């Protein structure tokens, strides 16, 4: 039987870690949670093995908008390790989610939350999508079809 979180959402297995030329990176969130309420803590562990010695490795909690027009993004919190070595062991991280914005999906704009692991050099190596909402699901703004010549703010 599928395990479910407190909102009733299924807890899915973590995706496999990134792999390229023997490198890999991975984020795990405690309890396999993907859905959080504003103010909740996102707690987990980062691990990696990198072929090239990193200057730093960082886990970022962020949101971004998608849809037509410019993308908006905000890194809300980050945990950085300077000169952490090619092999991480388990590195714990913990972020407190702000009061908003909530995850939402509109006809023209969608807002996504996520955590990602970034290394320098290397860039973004791994990410997990999250939902942040007091209702346990993303807020749906509307259901009508968008106009074809929409210019988004």
């Amino acid at each position: 039987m599928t395990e479910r979180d407190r909102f009733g959402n299924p807890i899915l297995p973590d995706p496999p870690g990134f792999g390229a030329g023997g490198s890999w990176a991975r984020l795990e969130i405690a309890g396999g949670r993907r859905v959080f309420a504003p103010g909740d803590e996102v707690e987990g562990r980062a691990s990696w093995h990198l072929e090239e010695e990193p200057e730093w490795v960082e886990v970022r909690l962020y949101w971004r908008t998608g849809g037509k027009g410019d993308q908006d993004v905000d890194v809300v919190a980050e945990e950085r390790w300077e000169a952490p070595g090619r092999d991480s062991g388990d590195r714990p991280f913990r972020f407190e989610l702000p009061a908003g914005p909530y995850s939402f999906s509109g006809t023209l704009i969608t807002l996504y939350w996520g955590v990602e692991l970034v290394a320098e050099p290397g860039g973004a190596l791994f990410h997990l999508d999250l939902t942040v909402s007091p209702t346990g699901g993303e807020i749906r703004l509307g259901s009508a079809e968008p106009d074809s010549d929409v210019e988004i703010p």
Partner: protein
Amino acid sequence: MSAVRPRDNPFSAQRIDRLPWRPPPGQPGLDALLERLEALGGAAAVVGAKGHGKTTLLEALGRRLEERGASVHRLRLTPHRMPSQRELRGFLRRVESDGFLVLDGYDHLSRWWRHRLRRTSRRAAGLLVAAHRPGRLPVLLEARSTPDLLAELVKELLDGSDPPLSLPSADELFERHGGNLRLALREMYDRCGAAG
């Protein structure tokens, strides 16, 4: 509310970008802020969360400085728009003694580049940055939006009319977007563009 064409949407980016900065109740206006900046030694930060008006204030202060005859050097950094080290060096080299550095997205600079920027600002007329956190710079103003401000902006974009009941209230929008006014107004754009 019936669907509107994008160019007629009252919450279009063009209309939102034209909204002037307004001081929060009980807070100083632009001229008083520039006096405060001078009192702080000419270098300071506007701090606050994303979407709370930092960029709008920074632009308004930059324009006011230009009206006073200052030469303003602007740079805007976002995670998607980071200049190369060469471009950053070029930007700092162009700063002259009467120049004012206005930088949005100070948080995106590395510690080393923030240090270089502060050093460069000593030979300039001043430095004004917008950031989530002030770092080593004194705080000029903490930008903080309110539901009342959002309601005021919505009404202004609707040319003085109250929003129809089919649209969410300012309180609801404010809460849903954590006080991020731009996102709240984007939601209104979405709803107006999609309604039918």
